[in-house]
């Protein structure tokens, strides 16, 4: 692997807080190594800004290994940047070349208000989980873990859905700001497991109701969410959610 350095122009969204208007600022960054991660490149810029007496760019990040779901940059018009099945923190600078201009924005969605610069408020996702994204089992209530066998195929599909990191890229990519991929991933994860069956109707109905209440838009099946999801959550989950929701609705009205 050949390493190189590059000079870039960054256009970054700056916004003091939720109640003030934001704007783009342009920053040149020099001597960036192709081995850096995208966030390390932002670190370099921030160090420079601090030394110049300016405020660094605020952005969310924690694990920097693609699993906590905290990082959330909209890079050149795509959540998490150009790589497939990738998070912002795992994007590396070898994706760019000398002289490139990179535009960095926060997630844009009414249900994700900007907190500062590139940080947004995703607490709506927590509230959707509160509405039913769990199995009601108190500590100590459990039977032996091998008492209920689970078909491997189902367990694997449940795991694939449970791999969602709650980053919100799906919402940011969607022209309707729909949260269906996120919600369907949770509904699928739990509906696929026998342990999740008793509550599955109520779960689908209340999570969807909460999603609507939070102001996320309707799903029109564009598939933009799946294309940017860092964990490869499939839109088949949305189909499953629709089925679960319909069946729950039917039996509810009986």
């Amino acid at each position, binding site marked *: *692997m050949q390493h190189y350095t590059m000079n870039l122009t960054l256009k970054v969204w700056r916004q*003091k*807080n939720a109640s003030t208007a934001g704007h783009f600022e342009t920053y040149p960054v020099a001597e960036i*190594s192709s*081995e*850096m991660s995208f*966030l*390390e490149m932002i*670190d370099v810029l921030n*160090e420079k*800004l*601090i*030394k110049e007496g300016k*405020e*660094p760019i*605020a952005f*969310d*990040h*924690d*694990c*920097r*290994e*693609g*699993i*906590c779901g*905290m990082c959330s940059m909209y890079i050149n018009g795509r959540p998490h940047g150009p*790589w497939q099945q990738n998070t912002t923190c*795992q994007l*590396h600078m*070898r994706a760019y070349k000398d002289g490139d201009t990179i535009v960095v924005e926060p997630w844009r969605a009414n249900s994700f208000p900007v*907190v*500062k610069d590139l*940080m947004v408020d995703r*607490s709506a996702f*927590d509230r959707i989980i*509160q*509405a039913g994204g*769990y*199995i009601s*089992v108190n*500590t*100590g209530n*459990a*039977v032996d873990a*091998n008492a*209920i*066998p*689970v*078909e*491997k195929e189902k*367990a*694997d599909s*449940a*795991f694939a859905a*449970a791999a969602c*990191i*709650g980053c919100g890229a799906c919402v940011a990519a969607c022209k309707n700001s729909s949260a269906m991929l996120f919600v369907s991933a949770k509904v699928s*994860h739990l509906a696929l497991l026998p*342990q*999740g069956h008793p509550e599955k109707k109520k779960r689908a109905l209340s999570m969807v109701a909460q999603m609507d209440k939070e102001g996320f838009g309707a799903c029109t099946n564009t598939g933009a969410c799946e294309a940017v999801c860092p964990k490869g959550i499939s839109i088949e989950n949305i189909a499953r959610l629709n089925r679960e929701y319909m069946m729950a609705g039917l039996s509810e009205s009986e």
Partner: protein
Amino acid sequence: MIDSKIPAGPLEHKWTDYKGHCKLVNPANKRKLEVIVVGTGLAGASAAASLGELGYQVKAFCFQDSPRRAHSIAAQGGINAAKNYQNDGDSVFRLFYDTIKGGDYRAREANVHRLAEVSVNIIDQCVAQGVPFAREYGGLLNNRSFGGTQVKRTFYAAGQTGQQLLIGAYQALERQVALGKVKMYTRHEMLDVVVIDGKARGIICRNLVTGQLERHFAHAVLLCTGGYGNVFYLSTNAMGSNVTAAWKAHKKGAYFGNPCFTQIHPTCIPVSGDHQSKLTLMSESLRNDGRIWVPALKGDKRAPNDIPEEERDYFLERRYPAFGNLVPRDVASRAAKERCDAGYGVGTTGQAVYLDFKFNLINKYGKAEANKLGIANPDTNTLIKLGNEVVKEEYGNLFDMYEKITGENPYEVPMRIYPAVHYTMGGLWVDYELMTSVKGLYALGEANFSDHGANRLGASALMQGLADGYFVVPYTIGNYLADEIATKPISTSHPAFEEAEQKAAARINQLLSIQGKQTVESFHKRLGRIMWDKCGMARDEKGLKEAISAIRQLKAEFWSDVRIPGGSDQMNPELDKAGRVADFIELGELMCQDALDRKESCGGHFREESQTEEGEAKRDDVDYAYVAAWEYQGDSQWQLHKEALQFEVAKPSQRSYK
């Protein structure tokens, strides 16, 4: 004297007896008792959810934007439990014994036995919550093996076990939030514990969005704030992981236990340059199937696949034939360092060794798959192809992660790995009930020092975090709160709250007023360098003394020349970071102090002066079979209290993995 409150009686009955006799709080009284849980990782989320279920009024805090993002989410390889589903000879006793031995006889027997006992309940609980552990075709749970053991007792969900366990605990927590039993405060950082009449009664925290300081009362406070590996700047911990909460508790009277016991994990992606902001772990589970080697020839620059079998040195298999690639972490890390220091390291920096999957890919998985498919005499390419598919299922996300970072494909070329700081066995000293030396103040999970002695075995941190939160503290806290039912909520205008908040505010103002020239990050990097060089994989008296004076100097420089932009009444991540780094600097000094005091080698703590002729760590049970519990006595001053360790069941012997 330190009272660890270990119950009397035979080891295997202690916990049962304790549970049978501890005080209980009736449901009506639970509703009147308030508990603060700081941290929502495995330890905090499981504790907050369980206490909410029991009926206590809980307030939970985390600094991320959601409780689901705690650092536990990043754990990869698995969680141990003495289920013996594999019928390979596992038992509660064996898990207990492996943990004590793996910890190099520096952990408390009673705590570790309890941990092994409740381990089985954890798996049951998690499965009931919907944690999608890996399963066999028959629908039953699968296991893999981890270092330091000869049984397969590790439950896992691909390379994302921590994520799945945390989501289980997070969902349980959010359920309690919905039921109104837990109130969740995200983007809040605890800055102090409030102690009234010798008892923890609340916390001061900063709302990280508005910058406001807040006061919160509770009858008891639980710190579940994780480990302090980031004192080394570079570690596998998340960027925000910090010691602040534990350190503030320490300054309010909580002893700090074995601060120098840190774990350096053998298999991490090596540093690529100065820009490096963190290091990425490649799970220990990879050592099940990967073989570690360096060229047998010094300075061999050939590409790894061009080096023939007989010119490779599988140094772990050579040195430790009984455990081979699955020796405990401390042993594996030092062996890799030894080879690299001797000039056999690989990669551009020479600070790396190979982790190679080809052998097992072909011989273990490839052949088994070919057998299943009835392919007779498969060629190597077929075997590799078949093996790749299995490996993808087991570790796909780790291989992807490696490729994203390095740009190299580990299915084809061996991974390059090097040891990195990963975990801290040390932490707040706690007694059997997980209470610190401040009454009503508890520490759970990685934040306490309790169960792993001088070295933690893989897949045991997740087990401990969940044991503490789901199954230990719900009992032990009742034993304390039963005597607090008459305590009315204390107003947060009490002078102790007033004073604690003023102190926190004064410190913030002081930090902001320095307006020096150097960034917080640059201080953190320098601290990390000192710690890694002098208090890292190998330590000696001279180096540690140098480190202490270098850290003192760094501290003075920090407090006179740090530059923090912005103000206090706003979101200000640099200010938050500055507070954390200031605490890390103080902790660094104590770690070196502790390492200096412990003249023996044990587990992850390797004193150059104390080694066998073969270069293995040499323990000294006569002089050092104790927990070092440090009491804060003012700036750079500590008093050492020793908790003697008694081994009644697992008799100490020199650890051997040969």
